[in-house]
Structures are given as C-alpha cells and as structure tokens.
C-alpha cells in the first residue's frame, strides 16, 4: 500500500521575463490501486505537475510538499524518486543514440531492484511484455526512441512501466497521438499493471477517450495551475459533453 501525497504545491519555471508560477497550490492524494484522471485545457499545468513530481531540473518547487509513504520526494534526485517507486511515462521521450532498448531496460531494472535481474526470467519477462504490447522482438535491438513513431514511443514507455513495476505511475498524455488500436493496446498495458501490482495511476489527459479504456476512480479538473473541480467518473462524462469552457470563463473572471 503506497500513498503519494501532494500538498499545496507551488512550482515555477524560469522564463526570459523572470520566474513564472505555473502550479499555484495543488493538493492531491494517490493511493495504490487508485486511478486518478487529471484533465484540463492546454497550459493549465498538467505536465508541469508530472515533471515536478519526477524531479525535472527545469521546474522549481517554491513551496508545498510531495511525499511518498511519508518520505520527502522533493529532497530526492530523479533517480532516487524512481527507485522509491515513482514512474513518469513521458509525453515526448528523448532519443538516446547508441543505447539499445534491451540494454536500457536491463540497466534500469538493475538500478531499480538494486541487483541484476536473473537472466532467464528477465528475457522471458521482456519478451512477453513486448508481445502483450504488440511490439516486434527486433524492437529490443533498436536504440532508445531513435526513429520510433509516436505510437512506438508510447508503447515503449508502457513497456518500461510494466517491467519496472513502480508503485505509482504518472502517465503524461500517453494517449496523445495514438490511433484507436494503439490506444487500446497501451490502455491494456496500464490495466495489466493495475491488476498485477496494485499500481496507483495518475493519468494526465486532455481528452476523455482514454477513460473509456482506463476507468478512473477520481477525476480532477485542472485549471490555471490548480484543481478547479473534483469528482467521480461522471465528471469526465460531463467534460466530454461540455468541454472546458465553463472553467475557462470562470478562470478569466477571477
């Protein structure tokens, strides 16, 4: 049972005009087995939340706390956060030339577990995880994200999530740019991880269509750097019908 607690989180980034506050007091609690959808218009700070939790150096936490089972996440380096059980499936994963997927996965698994995985079971695990995600076995010998299509990049992110078995996973717009088949395959991967390891999921998305495949327990609407409204799955349906307009006009009036 793991709990990720975000309390009054304020985050800024440096711009040419000086620091700009993006997150303006976020409160959120994600527990094992729960699926939280964070929805919101572009520029509302959804990705900033994801990268801040993962520890990207570009984002400066100015106040607030993030804890995982009481441990101070903000005091950890990005690699320590991952080893503590956090995972971020990135929207735009970078290419790492000359590093094969297979080498990368093994190195990451070794780092997370603190010991090299047993070769025989590892090879089998990778193979079956790739088959589940309909990835060709030749994929393992390609360089990380080099020349991957958008769909391949997202599958590769979910592959890592399935193999590294985090406690809490943040999926940053994993659905964007996917066709219906790929969306289904990727969603199946997330659902497998939820069932298999009681994964807690923070699902960041602009659209509701992924929520047809991954059922959220909670929906949070993100507007202007904080949670504007919270509710159950029915909130997503309402957003599907109404869009974000009523939140945006409310934010404009403030």
């Amino acid at each position: 049972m793991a709990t990720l607690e975000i309390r009054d989180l304020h985050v800024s980034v440096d711009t040419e005009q000086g620091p700009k506050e993006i997150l303006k007091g976020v409160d959120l609690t994600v527990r094992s087995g729960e699926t939280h959808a964070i929805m919101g218009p572009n520029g509302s700070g959804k990705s900033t939340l994801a990268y801040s939790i993962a520890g990207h150096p570009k984002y400066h936490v100015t106040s607030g706390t993030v804890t995982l089972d009481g441990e101070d996440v903000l005091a950890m380096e990005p690699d320590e956060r991952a080893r503590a059980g956090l995972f971020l499936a990135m929207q735009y994963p970078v290419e790492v030339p000359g590093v094969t997927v297979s080498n990368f996965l093994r190195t990451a698994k070794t780092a997370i577990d603190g010991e090299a995985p047993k070769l025989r079971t590892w090879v089998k695990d990778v193979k079956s995880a790739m088959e589940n995600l309909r990835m060709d076995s030749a994929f393992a010998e390609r360089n990380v994200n080099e020349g991957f299509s958008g769909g391949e990049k997202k599958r590769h992110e979910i592959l890592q999530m399935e193999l590294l078995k985090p406690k809490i996973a943040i999926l940053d717009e994993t659905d964007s740019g996917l066709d219906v088949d790929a969306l289904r395959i990727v969603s199946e991967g997330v659902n497998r991880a939820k069932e298999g390891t009681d994964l807690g999921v923070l699902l960041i998305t602009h659209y509701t269509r992924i929520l047809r495949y991954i059922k959220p327990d909670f929906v949070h609407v993100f507007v202007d750097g904080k949670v504007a409204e919270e509710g159950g799955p029915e909130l997503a349906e309402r957003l599907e019908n109404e869009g974000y307009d009523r939140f945006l006009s409310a934010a404009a009036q403030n």
Partner: protein
Amino acid sequence: MTLITPERNQAAGHVDPAAAYVPDQSRAERRTSFEVADFPVPHGREEEWRFTPVDRLGNVFSDTPTDDREGDPAATFDATEVEAVLAEPLGPGAAPRGTVLVPADRAAVVASANTDQALHLKLAADTVYDEPLRLRIHGNGAGRRSNAHYVLEAGPHSQGLVILEHTGSAEHTGNLEVIVGDGANLTVVTLQQWEDDAHHLGQHDALVGRDAAYRHIAVTLGGAIVRVNSNVRYAGPGGEATLLGVYFADAGQHLEHRSFVDHNAPRCTSLVTYKGALQGDTAHTVWVGDVLIRKEAEGIETYELNRNLVLTDGARADSVPNLEIETGEIAGAGHASSTGRFDDEQLFYLMARGIPEAEARKLVVRGFFADIVARIGVPEVVDTLMAAIEAELAATGS
C-alpha cells in the same frame, strides 16, 4: 550535404572561418618536399597550423636528431610482435621509402630528415596474418626529441592488422608510409596513450592498390598535444579506404586529426568517420577532413563525418570538412559535421528510470561512440578504448 567549393570565397556574407585567408586553389597544391628548408617553422597563421598551439611545439619542429643517450634511447621501439614481418631497414631514398610519403609539413620533414634507417615491415603476398602485428613505441622522457619513419608494405592479396601503440612521453615525430598491394586487406591502428606531457605529430600516408581495402584507425586518448594526419591516394581503380578516429580530450589536451583523401583513380570509395568527446577547461579537439575528387576519379563514392560531444563547459571542438569536386560523374559525395553539448534531457530520462547520474552519463557517452566502436570491430582495440573512456569519465567523478 554536399558542398562544392571550386572557390571558397565566392559566397558573400557566408561566415566561414576558412575564408579568412587566401587559400591554395586546390588541396592538391599543398607543398610536399623532402627538403627541411622548404618548410619554415610554422608561426600559427598558416592554414594547416591555424588550430595548433605551435608556440609549444618548438622542440618538435627543430631539425635535430633523436635524443638518444648511452643505453637510454629517447624512445624504445619494441618490435617483438612484428618480427614475422620485419624486413631490412630503409635509408633515405631507398625505395619503397619515399615513394608514397613525401613530407607535407614541418614535423614530417624533420622526422624524415632525421631518420637514417626507417623501420620496414613487409606482409608477404597472399598471406593472411591472424595475429595482430603490434609495434610498441614508448617515449622515455618528456621533452626528449624522437624521430621515426616506418614503411609498411602489404603484399598483393595479403591480409593483416598492424597496431602502432604509443605510450610514455617524448617529443615525437613519426611518419608512416603504407603501400597496400593490389587486393590486399590492411588495417592500421594508431593508438595514442601517451602521458600527459607528451607531444606527438605524425603523418600517415597510404597508397591503396587496385581492389585493395585499407583501414586506418586513430585512437587518441593521451598526450598534451597530438596531431595525426592520415592521408590516402589510390594506385588503381576499385580501392576502398576507411579512415576512422576516436578521441577523448581532457583539460589541457590538444588532440588534432586531419585527413586528406585524394581521389585520383576511378571507382574507388572512401569513408571518413571521426568521433570525439571533450571534457574540462581548455580541452581542445580539431578535425579537418579534406577530400579531393579529381577529374579522372569517375564513379567514386565518398562520405566524411565528424561528431563531437562536449561534456563540460570550457572545452572547444573545431570541425572542418572540405570537399573539392572536379567531376560530376561520381556515385556520391557528402559530408556531415556536428558538435553538441551533453544533453541534459537524455540524462533526466535515464535518471527518471532509476539509473544514477554517473551511470547515466556513462551510458550516453558509450552510446555516442557505439556506432564507431562497432565499425572499428577490432576487439582488443575496442576493449582498450572503452576501458579508457570509462576511466576518463570516472576521473572527473561526473
């Protein structure tokens, strides 16, 4: 990308550092001579010396004999692993010495003039040498002048791997003259693992025979100033030349590689690939790749590439590809050059998967060199190289 440069100054407004001087009309016009007097000591403004810290190279440029002392040579040449191919040494003018390599700069001409007896290695025709032929050159003291000239003949249809291994310290000038016989397959590796205070300038010229394959691999890791010029021309059609280089420069090191492929015969190929990493203040690398495609070189194909990975602030990589084309009747010609700093997004991505920073850096740097390492394909050279790179990365604790 293809760059055609019949006259380099033609494009107004084009900021090309190479345009700041009046160049030879063609790379082919560059002076070569056996006369020391034909090459004055460089002052640093000459095209071929403009990147090199010539003010620190006075000793290497001086026309002086090797600083051998009683029982204590300036450099030790351990030829035990080349005994199988050791031939009678060659005095000045004794062919084939001087038939392929004519000195093209000050360092090469003083090396030539001050080497009485050139070491002569001869791979017999139609013979495959399974074991690497390794010549170990060890400098016995910083500041001590050492001159060398080697002649390497690979007989027709022979096959072999020759490694020149440089360690220790010296003020070393070394010429390598290579004759690749028709149909031969020869790989030459020059490994620079000098101490931090060594200076080494070298000219390596090869004549590639008909349907022969020649590979020259420069691996430069040590030395204060190292400059290796690897040049190729062809004795007939069908020759293949592959010039590879890997370098890793630390603070205070100047590592320079130049190549000149003279496509003077039809239907030959050349592939030039150099990759380097730099870290630390004043680390400086230079790559200058010249290719000349002469009128008679129809049907040739050439490509040259240089990539530099700058790991820290304060390092500088110069990269200059020059392609000169006198005939359009070719299969292909291109070049690429890029210099980039270490990508923090790659680092974040790997760390976000639990990989500690030091290991993540190592992965990225190893990845950067992966394709050229695969192309080198000589296990013992690759192992030495990767071990040295890991040591370099570990040394900075980064």
